[in-house]
């Protein structure tokens, strides 16, 4: 500890090490959070169901989404990114997942809500397999922390069948 710069260097280095320990501890404690999520999503109506010029099916829906994600938030949570995916099976792909709607929840107060929305992103198939198809809604969430590991989770919400004919 012989000079000003020497002491400054020691202090900065040690402070950085302690900061790393604090962030590691904060992230580690996140693993003990056991959340309970409730969610529901259903189709209110099919706005449009057609075959594009490229040959792919396209669906546009109006959804009613409600969820309670408050238990996902810890003190180390910056935001929760949530999206609703439509999953179905075709002969070409064993699993198709298409994100229809997503949202960023900034804090716990906004984590419980209900919304009636049209899908943000169109449901476009690789091909023309959607008539009469059974589709499952799965809600995915990514818990983004201030520091540490991002935690993902999902929950199957409901099933529905697409119409047999184009509208």
């Amino acid at each position, binding site marked *: 500890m012989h000079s000003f710069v020497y*002491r400054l260097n020691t202090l900065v280095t040690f402070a950085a090490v302690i900061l790393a320990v604090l962030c590691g501890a904060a992230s580690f404690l996140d693993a003990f959070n056991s959340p309970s999520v409730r969610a529901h999503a259903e189709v209110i109506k099919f706005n449009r169901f057609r075959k594009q010029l490229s040959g792919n099916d396209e669906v546009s829906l109006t959804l009613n989404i409600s969820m309670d994600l408050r238990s996902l938030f*810890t003190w180390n949570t910056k935001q929760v990114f949530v999206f609703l995916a439509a999953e179905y099976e075709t002969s070409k792909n064993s699993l198709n997942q298409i994100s229809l709607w997503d949202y960023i929840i900034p804090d716990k107060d906004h984590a419980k809500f209900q919304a009636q929305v049209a899908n943000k992103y169109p449901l476009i198939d690789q091909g023309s397999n959607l008539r009469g198809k059974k589709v499952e809604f799965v809600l995915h969430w990514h818990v983004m922390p201030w520091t540490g590991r991002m935690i993902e989770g999902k929950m199957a919400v409901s099933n529905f069948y697409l119409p047999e004919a184009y509208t």
Partner: protein
Amino acid sequence: MDWEGQKRSEIFMLISLVVFGVVAFGVGYAIGSFQIMMLIYGSGVVLTALITVPNWPFFNRHPLKWLDPSEADRHPKPQVNTAAPKKKASKQK
């Protein structure tokens, strides 16, 4: 800073940073605010820096006693023998 001051400064720095870290984590976790933890720790680091890094007079309370000049004259420095034997590159044996 003198030797004693350096030791005190270093010990104080280590303890202070660790204490601020622990307090920051505890308060942040209890309140549930990551911002508060960072704020407490950051201000703790700055405070510790202000106390331990500059050369404050209270770190100089045990100054080194240098030898008095009159005393030094009575004990002259020993002469180093500069006439070292030179090595000759001898070609003949």
